[in-house]
């Protein structure tokens, strides 16, 4: 089992944090705040200037929020964003018919059953790909961004009418998918202190809910929680658990990745999609091929179709295919002692730290370069010539441009080491002995190194 000694429960260490997170006002309060920003994003997107760099919506979503999410929140706090995200908020409040206090014993929905075949990440995988295909358009056109976000929030509300709980977040939201995947690396986790207490606790308030809170909105049973991927860190269980058994642990990075029994193909594909997308974006946006950028920008329909075909082939076939060759090598090296499919899926989890590192490195580039736009759009969110805080004329100053390459290299190398270590742990669980594990993981490590080299080449030119 996990090495419990290396975990520190922050709630015990900081009672004030526990009080805050137990309070029914904290989460909705944060959501109201993000909802305020979200509304402003929609308004500026729809009514503000079409010049992206002058539009609050574009800058705050694709630079400020994205940077915060991928560089800070996901790597260090896992799914914390999901607990303050404004998108599911209206739907959730509608189900609860209240914002803060718990009023109704049951959620108000039509109580439909979410289809079994969608109880996985595939919808999120394809949703992400769909958004990714249009990303160059979405990232630069405030109106398109606004409509996209509006459609998310609408979908959230509609789903909450039919289905209980955060079905949108868990099975549909294209962002939720990769946050979940990458949250497994984060050093923060919600877990129970003592699983045996849960075993004997028959009423399971964390699942059913009680007067202090709702049953887990993410449809998770905290008593058996062993990965961050499905826990939205909403802290309802902290409020409901009468046994004081919920902990918010600080733990080593990447602990969840080696929980092999949970490994699944949909998640493995999420890992491929994310890694491959990071690569495509780096190539399209940073690479020297202007033609490619034009094609991605929908210069013409045939151009874009060619780009889309290439993109999907690369992401869904080429990258998993090449990876498959390497995992087949591992499989042969272990003398086929496990099914190939299992080896393939297990090793795909080594791409999680690597993929996250690639995204962090990629994002560092444009976030540091363009972050200063945030100042001017804060004062003139619509590009209407306002100057609310006197910063409308703030110049565009790239932050630490000389440092970026170093930071990117550091992040990528850390990602590589982390991935190789994960690979070793996975191999160890697969074949047991150190020496054998070492041999089995070699092809995988080679693949990871190859990927790192490609990224380095893209970032460092």
């Amino acid at each position, binding site marked *: 089992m996990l090495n419990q000694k290396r975990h520190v429960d922050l709630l015990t260490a900081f009672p004030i944090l526990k009080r805050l997170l137990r309070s029914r*006002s904290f989460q909705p309060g944060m959501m*109201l705040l993000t909802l305020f920003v979200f*509304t402003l994003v929609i308004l500026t997107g729809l009514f503000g200037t*079409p*010049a*992206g760099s002058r539009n609050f919506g574009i800058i705050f979503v694709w630079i400020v929020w994205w940077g915060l999410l991928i560089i800070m929140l996901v790597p260090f706090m896992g799914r914390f964003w999901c607990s303050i995200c404004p998108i599911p908020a209206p739907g959730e*409040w509608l189900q609860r018919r209240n914002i*803060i206090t718990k009023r109704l014993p049951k959620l108000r929905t039509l109580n439909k059953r979410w289809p079994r075949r969608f109880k996985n990440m595939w919808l999120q995988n394809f949703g992400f790909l769909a958004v990714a295909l249009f990303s160059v358009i979405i990232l630069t056109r405030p109106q398109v961004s606004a409509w996209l976000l509006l459609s998310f929030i609408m979908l959230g509300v509609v789903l909450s009418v039919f289905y209980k709980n955060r079905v949108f977040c868990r099975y549909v939201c294209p962002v939720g998918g990769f946050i979940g995947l990458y949250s497994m690396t984060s050093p923060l986790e919600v877990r129970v202190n003592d699983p045996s207490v849960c075993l004997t606790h028959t009423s399971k308030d964390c699942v059913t809910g009680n007067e202090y809170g709702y049953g887990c909105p993410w449809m998770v049973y905290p008593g058996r929680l062993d990965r961050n991927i499905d826990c939205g860190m909403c802290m309802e269980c902290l409020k409901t658990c009468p046994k004081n058994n919920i902990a918010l642990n600080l733990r080593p990075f990447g602990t969840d990745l080696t929980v092999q029994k949970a490994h699944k193909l949909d998640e493995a594909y999420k890992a491929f999609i994310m890694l491959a997308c990071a690569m495509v974006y780096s190539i399209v946006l940073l690479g020297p091929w202007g033609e490619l950028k034009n094609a991605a920008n929908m210069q013409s329909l045939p151009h874009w179709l060619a780009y889309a075909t290439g993109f999907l082939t690369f992401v869904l076939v080429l990258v998993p295919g090449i990876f498959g060759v390497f995992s087949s090598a591992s499989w042969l090296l272990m003398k086929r002692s496990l099914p190939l499919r299992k080896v393939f899926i297990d090793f795909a989890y080594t791409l999680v730290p690597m993929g996250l590192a690639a995204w962090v490195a990629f994002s560092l580039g444009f976030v540091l370069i363009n972050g200063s736009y945030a100042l001017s759009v804060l004062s003139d969110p619509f590009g*209407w010539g306002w100057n609310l805080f006197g910063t409308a004329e703030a110049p565009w100053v790239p932050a630490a441009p000389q440092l970026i390459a170093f930071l990117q290299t550091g992040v990528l190398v850390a990602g590589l080491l982390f991935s190789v270590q994960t690979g070793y742990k996975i191999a160890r669980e697969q074949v047991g002995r150190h020496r054998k594990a070492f041999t089995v993981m070699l092809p995988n490590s080679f693949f990871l190194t190859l990927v790192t080299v490609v990224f380095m080449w893209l970032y460092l030119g």
Partner: protein
Amino acid sequence: MTFREAAARTILVVILLGLPIGILGYRYVLQPFLSPETTFEVQAYAPESGGFSPAVIQVEAGKEVTLRFTSMDVTHGVAIGPGLDAAIDHIDPGEQGEITLTFDKPGTYTYYCTTWCSADHWRMRGIIEVRDPVNPDLLPQVQSDPVIEGLLEEGIDIDADHEGEALAIAPSAARGGDLIESVIVPDEVRQVDWQRTHSPAEALTILQTQNASYSDAELRDVIAYLWMLNTTSTVDTIQTYNQNCAACHGESGNGAGPAAYLTADVPAVFDDPGYMFSMRADVLYAKIRRGGMGTDMPNFGTLFTREETWALVDYLWLLAFEPTLNE
């Protein structure tokens, strides 16, 4: 309902309804009502992506307006003409620039790009219709140009091919200045109006009859000098030329600007004195204002005043007869 719940609901209503209504109401109802200044947002795209959007703006004469230009793709420059002296030198992609001005007289004005932004750069224009608030249906039309009318009456084809003759020695206004005291020049030839309706070659024929002791080359120097006498060019003219003409005709007038290879017809070479010597100023004027048929020479009549156009023509003589003055 607890106090917290009530507060949260109030905040929710403020966010979802108050914020949109407040901002949009202020922007589209209150602000236009309160302040007389009207702001027009204009997005500047390269011509093949649509040019200026909007491309037509209607304003009232006598009212202060602001035009805020946002560069959407590449660097653009903006000027409004004719005769307004309103310009933004360059607006980088994603940046904005404003021009605030009051149109005193009703009529049609043009905003145009002043930076070589694409092969179709010169197509990048927008129109400002300035209407008289008392009589908004009447938009004064551009009056016909007496100079162009005059050429037509005279039966001169503005678009006719113009061949110069090769000159062994390039005329020099500087040398002509040394001779001017001793050469007999009829008064008429010194007059602006005469010079604008005759070519230097015609002036040469007249001077030859009265100055037999001088060589043709010397007389050409004198004529070059005479053609400089009445110049109306200023430093602004150089900028106008460089912004609007140099892309094709070259900054030195050598006909080899960066976009010269794109035009349907070879751009005229102004620093070729042979070509210019048999050219008439009013024909140059007409070409600038009306454009050249089938040559890709755009019309600038909607951008420049007549005076500005003459100053440009005068600058071309400068390029022809005293290229060193250009510096």
